[in-house]
């Protein structure tokens, strides 16, 4: 019985593209503005995270945040604070919380929750039941932000 339900859970997880170790969006544990545990158990890749940061179809973080580490990009947004020094200002666990669901950290913020897949109103069909970023992309962008240290 137990074995069976576990097996079906694994099938369901693999079907939705999640690895067994991946924390589902609804299972992310927020504690005092932090998410302590990695969402995947796989270390984030800062190089891939840089692409997540600027990619218009990925995080598009640059739409709202200036980032002096990306001078080659011509349009930097001003809606949120500049990202310079973010990795000195915040811990990895705090950054994971901010990116996963900023509303758990900044009340009523305009910043979207990048790792949330339900509870939206009138979500377009194409994105229904999906999070903006995958768990690994969140880990990657967090790893990238951790490289943005104060001089």
């Amino acid at each position, binding site marked *: 019985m137990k074995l069976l339900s576990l097996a079906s859970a694994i099938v369901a997880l693999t079907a939705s593209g999640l690895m067994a170790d991946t924390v589902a969006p609804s299972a992310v544990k927020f504690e005092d503005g932090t998410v302590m545990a990695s969402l995947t158990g796989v270390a984030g890749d800062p190089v891939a995270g840089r692409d997540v940061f600027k990619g218009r179809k990925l995080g598009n973080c*640059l739409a*709202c945040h200036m980032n002096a580490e990306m*001078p080659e990009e011509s349009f930097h947004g001003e809606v949120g604070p500049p990202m310079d020094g973010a990795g000195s200002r915040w811990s990895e666990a705090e950054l994971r919380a901010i990116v996963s669901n900023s509303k758990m950290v900044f009340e009523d913020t305009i910043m979207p929750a990048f790792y949330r897949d339900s509870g939206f*109103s009138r*979500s377009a069909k194409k994105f229904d039941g999906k999070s*903006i970023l995958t768990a690994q992309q969140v880990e990657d962008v967090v790893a990238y932000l951790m490289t943005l240290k104060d001089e």
Partner: protein
Amino acid sequence: MKFSKLLAGTVCLAFVSFSAVADQDAKLIIEGEEISVRASAPAHAENLDEVVSGWVYRKDETQALQLDDFDNPAFVFVDQAIDEWSNVDGTAGESCSSCHEDVADFKGLRPSLPRVEDGQLVTMENLINECRTDRMGAEAWSYSGSEMTGMTALVGLQSRGMPINVAIDGDAASFWETGKELYYTRVGQLDMACSNCHEDNYDTMIRADHLSQGQINGFPAYRLKNAKLNSMHARFKGCMKNIRANPYKEGGEEFKALELYIASRGEGLSVETPSVRN
């Protein structure tokens, strides 16, 4: 090495903000007539001190296209609508001009729309289609199609320079409340409301776009992006798609109510129709 790279970054950023932001005190004068692009906010736009036309936030080159009707690409479509005005269409054998002697008689209509008639909120598009179906025996035009946007531009132009002034009390009040509710409701996977961008963050850059208050005094608007006139509801739909929401229907009750609410937030701005945007 690192230093020079950083320096190049600063220069590049500075360049971006200069080129993107136009002179905010520029005046909009078309054919010798001043169009109010700023006004003090009406009391019912609770969180604004000043209302500002989207024209103010466009780049110099885009702003310039609106200063002279010969340069304004929207007038190609206005000219087509002038032809359409006297074109007989439908089973009754009539054209617009059979009933309305001069399109200039519509001066004053644009700033008062949408309005309530027999308990229904009606937009200019509704009024035009009512003439087509009920009086001309012609097919209704599609809500944001080129015939319709051309005609709403021509009729709206007759009121250019007049202040927006819609009724929001009496039987309009409940529609206005619905529109207000929609304006502040977060939707889509990005979970944003119109207010997040157009009230809380206007006059800031969101990547390459300089956010305005999302006013509708210039509609239909010619957009350089798609080289045609765009209806208000098509614009609402576009913004909803950008936040990955399932948009409401053009011409539907939700967008009509939103139109009334947003029109009321622009009270005091001049009708700018047809405007030029990017």
